[in-house]
């Protein structure tokens, strides 16, 4: 069912510590390895060793430069589905293939009913869904739904593959709906935030900010607002201006 379920009390998700992530890509490769054989299988690649490699990945690690001059710093930034509480990626789906689980809030795509229309990927502001051109269906982070409840795995392995793989411990998995959980407590003490809060999809995943630098160089700087270029004086512009004037009379 594409309509959203009533909000669940369990909100499984990830907490990613941007202070200690070193951008090693271990989570991304481990995710690819598990999921190309798991729920999302296959995760097809095209021309993987050639000049124009591409393929479906469920986790992408960016590196950004933040701030200016001496207060500038590098922030490694893993990005995957945030398992939003009110995401349109679910409601736009015409088939019901894209759904949010009532019991734990995980957002999944049913690979047996997805028609590959790609509309859900258009509705995601986080770029978290990637289409699989060979499989003809949409792929996205499953929160390793086939690991976390998997009783054939040892108890300590019942976490998402990315969490298990991270060598620095920058990724944690837990119930963000429970204020007493480890992850929730960590979010509270470290000032964890969600991405693009303003957009209103209410992501479940949280990010922990880089800690202040010991040399005191991370004083906040003002973010310059990009100047909005003035309209040029072309014929088309004049035509639009004329239509606007006529219409606003």
């Amino acid at each position, binding site marked *: 069912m594409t309509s959203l379920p009533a909000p669940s009390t369990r909100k499984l998700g990830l907490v990613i510590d941007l202070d200690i992530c070193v951008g090693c890509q271990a989570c991304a490769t481990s995710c690819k390895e598990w999921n190309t054989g798991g729920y999302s299988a296959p995760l097809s690649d095209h021309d993987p060793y050639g000049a124009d*490699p591409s393929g479906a990945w469920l986790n992408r690690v960016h590196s*950004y430069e933040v701030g200016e001059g001496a207060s500038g710093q590098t922030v490694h930034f893993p990005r995957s589905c945030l398992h939003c509480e009110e995401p349109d990626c679910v409601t736009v*789906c*015409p088939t019901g293939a894209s759904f949010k689980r009532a019991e734990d809030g995980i957002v999944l795509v049913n690979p047996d009913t997805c*028609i590959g229309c790609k509309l859900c990927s258009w509705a995601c502001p986080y770029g978290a869904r990637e289409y*699989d051109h060979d499989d003809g269906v949409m792929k996205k982070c499953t929160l390793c739904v086939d690991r976390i409840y998997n009783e054939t795995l040892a108890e300590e392995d019942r976490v998402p593959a990315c969490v298990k793989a991270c060598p620095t411990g920058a990724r944690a998995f837990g119930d963000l709906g429970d204020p007493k959980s480890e992850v929730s407590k960590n979010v509270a003490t470290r000032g964890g935030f969600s991405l693009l809060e303003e957009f209103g999809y209410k992501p479940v995943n949280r990010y922990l900010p880089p800690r202040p630098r010991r040399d005191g160089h991370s004083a906040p700087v003002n973010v310059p607002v990009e100047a909005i270029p003035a309209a040029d004086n072309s014929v088309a512009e004049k035509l639009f201006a004329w*239509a606007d004037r006529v219409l606003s009379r």
Partner: protein
Amino acid sequence: MHPAYSVILFTTASGAGYGLLFWLSLGIQIGYFAGDRWQSLAMLVPALALITIGLLSSMLHLGHPERAHRAMSQWRSSWLSREGVAALSTYVPASLMGMIWLLEIDTNFLPALAILAAAGAMITVYCTGMIYASLRTIRHWNLGLVPLFYIAAAATTGALLFLLIQSIFARAPDWVAVTGVAAIAMAMIVKLIYWRTIDGNKGQYTAEMATGLGALGTVRPLDPPHTMPNFVMREMGYKVGRKHARKLRRVAVALAFILPLAMVLLALYSGWPQLPMLALATLSAAIGIVVERWLFFAEAEHVAMLYYGAARA
């Protein structure tokens, strides 16, 4: 946004088909065809052909066309699903009308069927527009003007086809041509307002909001997560031709609106043969609307590009 040719063909062809079906049904409503079934069929057949070509082309765009029937199921929440339901439903009154004319069935149901067909055509085109307008991630689309223009464009191309086919049988009466002129003028005005609106909106979201790192300063990409563009960049980050947008807008206005408008007026008042002028008007509008539709996609920017170097979206 990447302009997929199948979707451009779908929205333009089925739009024209629904527009033609709409005007035909309206004509039947007011008793315009007065029993000339061949003339009615000569409009219905191309209308249904255009609609069907469009729908088939949109199905080819799917990863699993054989599962397309599933898209009817989520009409409670999804505009794409609603469009599918509306499109299929519209076939029912439209093909019944065709059967009545083909088999010369004597019935009083024709006006009722015509109302249903006209409403179905309108609703389907509205749903098509809403698929795009409902996406908050794309500020160029998330506007009430979008479904309005989809309807105006369908009305324009449909009216031109109506006039063209009509002129094969007899001179188009003035009031029909005036309707066409009004449709073209309305489409042009809506599109001009639309362009002004999107030009005035530089986007309310920033890379700093997207990463949540604004407190530390401006955010710029340093190392990309992949060496070559991925699906998200290819689909959502399409930039080709954006720098020609101004030129293409002028081409679209000239071909889709101004030339057809002049041709229809000439066909009406010059006293010259109408057919060639209306054929030229229709051809010009078809090319113009395709250019417009290409721009509708190519100019649209997606919020996810904030992660890939866009400063605002």
